[in-house]
């Protein structure tokens, strides 16, 4: 799969359906939890407030039954009994002066039952009861405990929510990674298959989920393709054998007849017939060879190859021919990279390219074979540049050949999994470039 389809890592992850599902469910889950906690908090707060109010009510009920003479004593007693110092008491005269209790100044009461003092805000709920003699009795209860409980509740909710959010994210990441790993694994194998290794199959896990089902279908498809290719290959090989035997006989018989009639007019006719058969056979052979290389993944001849040696060999082989055609031939060896290849096939590729360059370069032109190394990409770069007529231009008149040379080059390049490009150069000429990974 190309990089254009996966511009970056995170976009790639976001496209995984499980991550999107996990995010959606995570959001819903967290929202529900928060709503539930807010409700619990509200309920708990209301309950605690009611409880405080009930306690205040009980204290009030107790104090208002006590005669005025004993009230100061009763307030002192109630204060003494309140070991946690949560209860508030105050008896104030008509002028608001404190007569008893732990409130030094007369507080005010808000509409929602909270006691407020001007000097300091007290977090307390309470009631103010006017007595018959004009005095006022204040009974309240500190809300510090309630606030503390509320804080505990809030902390518990925040902690619980965070843990749940984290767990959700972790689960999403684990699911996504698992799916992404499976998808990447499938991509790697698919790449190997497109490179020609039809024996590869996609992994099918024991879960039989949607990816496994899809992989099973693709594997079944690959089985069929492999079987069909094997059949085609078998037919081609049988055809090769079946056609070659009669062609061999025909050629041998014409050859024999030509030898018997040496020096006669018939021999000349037979000679032309033999030439035609040879042309036919050469085309037939080239076609079969392309099909053999295309269909065949056997790599018996593969070994470590010194490309510089191959280039030199082809240079030495063609140099006299190039010179004879009135062309200049240069060999530039800038590195000596080693590649894994079938040396015979590499020689065939180079020969075909040089052969082509010679055919398409007019008298006085030049051809250059250059071998270099791209250290960053660990690639050997073999280039053949000529000053010929360029790619896509008509073949010069009188050029011989069956036109299958480039098909053969492509088949061999594909077998080796190299990269090959052919492009026109300015103002004229062609650049053929072969890129091979080094080791």
């Amino acid at each position, binding site marked *: 799969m190309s990089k254009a389809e996966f511009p970056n890592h995170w976009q790639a992850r976001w496209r995984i359906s499980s991550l999107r599902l996990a995010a959606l469910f995570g959001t819903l889950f967290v929202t529900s939890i928060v709503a539930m906690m807010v409700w619990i908090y509200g309920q708990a707060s209301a309950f605690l407030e009611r409880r405080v109010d009930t306690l205040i009510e009980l204290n009030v009920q107790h104090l208002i039954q006590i005669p005025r003479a004993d009230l100061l004593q009763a307030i002192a007693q109630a204060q003494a009994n309140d070991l946690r110092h949560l209860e508030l008491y105050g008896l104030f005269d008509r002028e608001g002066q404190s007569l008893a209790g732990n409130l030094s100044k007369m507080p005010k009461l808000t509409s929602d039952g909270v006691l407020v003092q001007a000097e300091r805000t007290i977090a307390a709920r309470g009631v103010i009861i006017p007595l018959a003699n004009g005095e006022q009795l204040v009974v309240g209860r500190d809300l510090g405990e309630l606030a503390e409980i509320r804080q505990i509740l809030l902390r518990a909710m925040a902690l619980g929510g965070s843990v749940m959010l984290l767990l959700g994210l972790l689960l999403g990441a684990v699911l996504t990674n698992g799916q992404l790993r499976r998808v990447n694994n499938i991509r790697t194998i698919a790449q190997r298959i497109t490179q020609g290794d039809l024996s590869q199959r996609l992994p099918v896990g024991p879960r039989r989920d949607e990816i496994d089902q899809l992989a099973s279908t693709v594997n079944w498809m690959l089985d069929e393709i492999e079987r069909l290719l094997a059949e085609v290959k078998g037919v081609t090989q049988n055809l090769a*054998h079946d056609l070659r035997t009669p062609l061999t006989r025909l050629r041998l018989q014409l*050859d024999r007849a030509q*030898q018997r009639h040496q020096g006669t007019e018939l021999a000349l006719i037979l000679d032309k017939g033999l030439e035609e058969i040879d042309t036919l056979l050469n085309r037939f052979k080239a076609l079969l060879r392309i099909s053999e290389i295309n269909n065949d993944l056997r790599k018996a001849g593969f070994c470590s190859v010194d490309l510089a040696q191959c280039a030199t*060999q082809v240079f030495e082989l063609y140099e006299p021919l190039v010179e004879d055609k009135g062309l200049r031939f240069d060999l530039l060896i800038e590195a000596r990279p080693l590649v894994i290849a079938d040396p015979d*096939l590499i020689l*065939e590729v180079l020969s075909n390219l040089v052969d082509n360059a010679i055919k398409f370069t007019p008298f006085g032109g030049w051809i250059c074979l250059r071998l270099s190394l791209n250290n960053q990409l660990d690639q050997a770069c073999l280039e053949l540049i000529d000053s010929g007529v360029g790619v896509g231009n008509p073949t010069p008149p009188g050029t011989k*050949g069956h036109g299958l040379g480039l098909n053969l080059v492509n088949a061999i390049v594909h077998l080796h999994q190299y990269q090959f490009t052919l492009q026109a150069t300015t103002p004229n000429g062609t650049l053929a470039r072969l890129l091979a990974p080094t080791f």
Partner: protein
Amino acid sequence: MNRILTIEDDAATASEIALELDAHGMTVTTCGDGPQGLALALQGGYDLITLDRMLPGLDGLSLVKHLRNSGQNTPVLMISALSDVDERVKGLRAGGDDYITKPFDLAELTARVEVLLRRHNSLPTTQLTVSDLTVDLITRQAIRAGQSLSLMTKEFQLLVFLMRNAGQVLPKRLLLEVVWNLHFDPSTNLIEVHIGRLRKKIDLPGMEPLIQTLRGSGYRLTRPIEHVKG
């Protein structure tokens, strides 16, 4: 007279091979299937075997393996309709001495048979001489009529092969295989150009030309070879 065993299931091809080799002074016995061919080969008494790759009963690869395992070292020229590089490699690894693909040229078949016979029967030498041309295989020096010749590596190899098989017509494809290790036909006049260069160096002005071109068949170095034991 050399005795040849031709194991070939196609009767017409077998008959043409027999006629051709017979015309070159060889006695040919033909056989149409694998097991019988192996029995004949194991009996011995043949100087060379031409062996089809695909045979009824026992294929050519297995046959040559059997033959080599039983200690027979008669040279084997494998003939096959399968031209794949791997097939050639397999044929040679199994014990074949040379490999030719169908359809082949009769002259090329004869040339390969004769080159194999000569290679098998020749004695080790350090020097080759044809007419007034001498090549020292140790010092890699070539001398024609007393004049030292300056030859490039491939030119020297080409000359040595021509001299070792002097008098024999050598097809272009065989020269490409032996000298340049090329197992395909580059479909150009490459060999003509190389022969032309060699010719200019060895056939000096006023001297008898040694390299002959046989149109459509190949090249031949004249005068029979004289071995000097080393």
